[in-house]
């Protein structure tokens, strides 16, 4: 077959060609543009780590058969070829390899922490709160998507700042992420069937024990302490079901932010470590920022099921918050103006008019019918005494029943 060094040279060229191509393809899928919504899901769905740890956290395999294929493909490939995924496919790995040539090559960070990080994720997931799952490389690179058209959200870069930081570190010590820190890299490397020496098994045992003793207590501690206080709960997207469920499975890939057509989904600024930078709905962001009745885009792109995919009919019945009128601020109740903007925008007919003695329509929100979509809050034109719609987020979402839809409000006596 000729000169082996010649072959090696060629192989390297082919490898770089493939890696650049796959990085380009990944960025294309992530940034989306004219692509269909599900494109935003493909890259984060490739990671077996996120899917497995979400399943461990919830004790339930959520992801559909079709959407499990990418992750199982990576798993199968790793059983056979080990770190082939890292060296040929992983788009983040390619990105971090770019500064290798010009780097200082100083080994200032000698420790290999990837094993501990991996087991930390697995054990903290087992307790119900995968604390550092956002380190998953495929979710990390998917975060670039929020820079694309539609979202424009600089806050998403708080967890996204990982990329520039590691790139800087790679300038000093190439491979620092891929070989020493990446939890997914550890998983695919260890999966390879053929290469287990007793020393490696020992090392694995040590990592496992370290992960267990760090992950379990920390996750238990933060699960109960680092949560949002009751008065500052986030409004979560309709498929999130409840805050515990959501916080335990969201990998912060922001595919949901990416596809939200109204831009109501944003990155949470408040809350404890357990809910650091999770997506939430903010109805005050800009004109038109509310959850659309005929949209379930975010429900269809979540790779882990943190936002479950509900049918449009079920999504329209999913109650995520409850709105109410602040009468002291309302233009109808207080200024006797024929405003009624909230009622116009309510897609669920949850706002009723109280005419009273003067015939001026004054809004009352039927709390049983209200889904908490925030359209009324967003359109409310009252400014002088603040917005006249108050939104009360729900910790656990529920379904609005047909009985609820038939209910009526109690009018005040006049």
């Amino acid at each position, binding site marked *: 077959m000729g000169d082996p060094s010649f072959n090696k040279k060629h192989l390297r060229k082919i490898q770089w060609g493939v890696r650049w191509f796959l990085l380009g393809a990944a960025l294309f899928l992530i940034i989306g543009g004219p692509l269909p919504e599900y494109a935003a899901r493909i890259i984060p769905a490739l990671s077996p780590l996120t899917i497995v740890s979400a399943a461990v956290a919830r004790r339930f395999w959520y992801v559909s058969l079709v959407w499990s294929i990418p992750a199982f493909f990576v798993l199968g490939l790793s059983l056979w070829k080990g770190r082939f995924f890292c060296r040929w496919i992983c788009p983040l790995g390619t990105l971090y390899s770019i500064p290798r040539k010009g780097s200082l090559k100083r080994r200032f960070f000698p420790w290999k922490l990837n094993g501990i990080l991996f087991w930390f994720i697995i054990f903290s997931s087992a307790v119900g709160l995968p604390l550092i799952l956002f380190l998953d490389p495929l979710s990390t690179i998917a975060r670039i998507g929020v820079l694309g058209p539609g979202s424009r959200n600089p806050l998403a870069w708080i967890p996204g700042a990982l990329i520039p930081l590691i790139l800087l570190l790679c300038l000093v010590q190439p491979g620092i992420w891929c070989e020493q820190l990446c939890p997914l890299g550890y998983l695919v490397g260890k999966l390879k069937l053929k290469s287990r020496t007793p020393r490696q098994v020992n090392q694995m045992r040590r990592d496992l024990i370290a992960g267990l003793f760090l992950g379990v207590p920390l996750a238990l501690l933060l699960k109960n302490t680092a949560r949002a206080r009751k008065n500052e709960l986030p409004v979560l997207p309709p498929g999130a079901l409840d805050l515990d469920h959501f916080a335990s499975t969201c990998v912060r890939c922001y595919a949901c932010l990416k596809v939200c057509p109204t831009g109501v989904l944003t990155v949470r600024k408040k809350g404890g470590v357990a809910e650091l930078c999770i997506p939430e709905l903010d109805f005050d962001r800009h004109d*038109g920022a509310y959850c659309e009745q005929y949209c379930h885009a975010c429900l269809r792109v979540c790779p882990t099921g943190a936002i479950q995919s509900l049918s449009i009919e079920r999504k329209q019945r999913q109650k995520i918050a409850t709105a109410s009128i602040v009468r002291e601020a309302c233009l109808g109740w207080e200024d006797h103006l*024929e405003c*009624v903007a909230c009622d116009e925008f309510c897609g669920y007919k949850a706002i009723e008019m109280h005419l009273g003695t003067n015939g001026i329509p004054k809004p009352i929100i039927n709390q049983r019918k209200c889904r908490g979509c925030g359209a009324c809050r967003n359109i409310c*034109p009252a400014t002088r005494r603040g917005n006249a719609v108050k939104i009360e987020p729900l910790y656990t979402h529920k379904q609005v029943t047909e009985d609820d839809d038939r209910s009526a409000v109690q009018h005040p006596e006049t």
Partner: protein
Amino acid sequence: MSRHTVKSKSSRRGFVKIGMAGTATVLASSEIIADNDPKVDVWVLHGTDKQRLMQKALELIQENGWFGSNVKTLALKVNAAWSRTPEEGANTHPDLVDAFIKGVKKGGVKEVILPEHPCNNAKIAFERSGIKSVADENKCKMIDLKTRQKSFREVQIPLGKKLKTAEVAAEFIDVDAVVNMPVAKHHEGATLSIAMKNWMGIIKDRRHWHRTDLHQCIADFSTFMKPSWTIIDATRCMLDSGPQGPANELKIPDLLILSKDQVAADAYASSIFHETPYAVKYLKYAEEMGIGVVDSSQMNIHKIEVG
């Protein structure tokens, strides 16, 4: 008198095009007589075939001066504000839009644009309303004004009582002709939403109208915005739960109402819903301010059956 000359010229041109030059002089002169009549023309077309209703309406527009002379660009204000289907009656029916675009293009208009500042998200509302696909089919641009924040231009409204300025989409200012094609429907805040109310979809800040005085602002803005024609879709009308619906009671009048006077068109359309147009406050204001005709005795109502 110069206005009449221009008008007759334009109608003559239209007829030369369709090969009826001989009748042009007769028609032009009859138009001058009609213009001397102080009554306002309102055409009420009845029929179940939306394509033919619109074709008849365009014939009438052709006979009555088209959109002015030498019209190359036309901005059409439909109502595509809500993510509702055509049958629900919250938006203008797409079949009417389709027939209109085809007709005016055949009549020599080069470009028709459909700018709209929707209430629901444009991507969803334009698609569900069925109007986006009609616009695409006819190669017309349907413009989401929410994404065109820079195109809003501040205008003075000297005749306005409470609304003195407004930021209006330049797409409606920089064209040769503007046509308003609203749907007639119930509206919780404004009583009825028809033609005058439809202009809320071309301004930047609708909230300002709500907190100022909705009815007065609607009337005030109509002193500024005067379309060449108002064509009201009253083929199906929501009698309640407006402006979004879906309505508990949907009336099917199968009407298309056509006039150059938007106030008269609104006043006639209001008869579908109420016994008197004065039940709608902004129509009352419009009459008081002399913007247009509300009293039906001041109108020439031409009822036409389109079989």
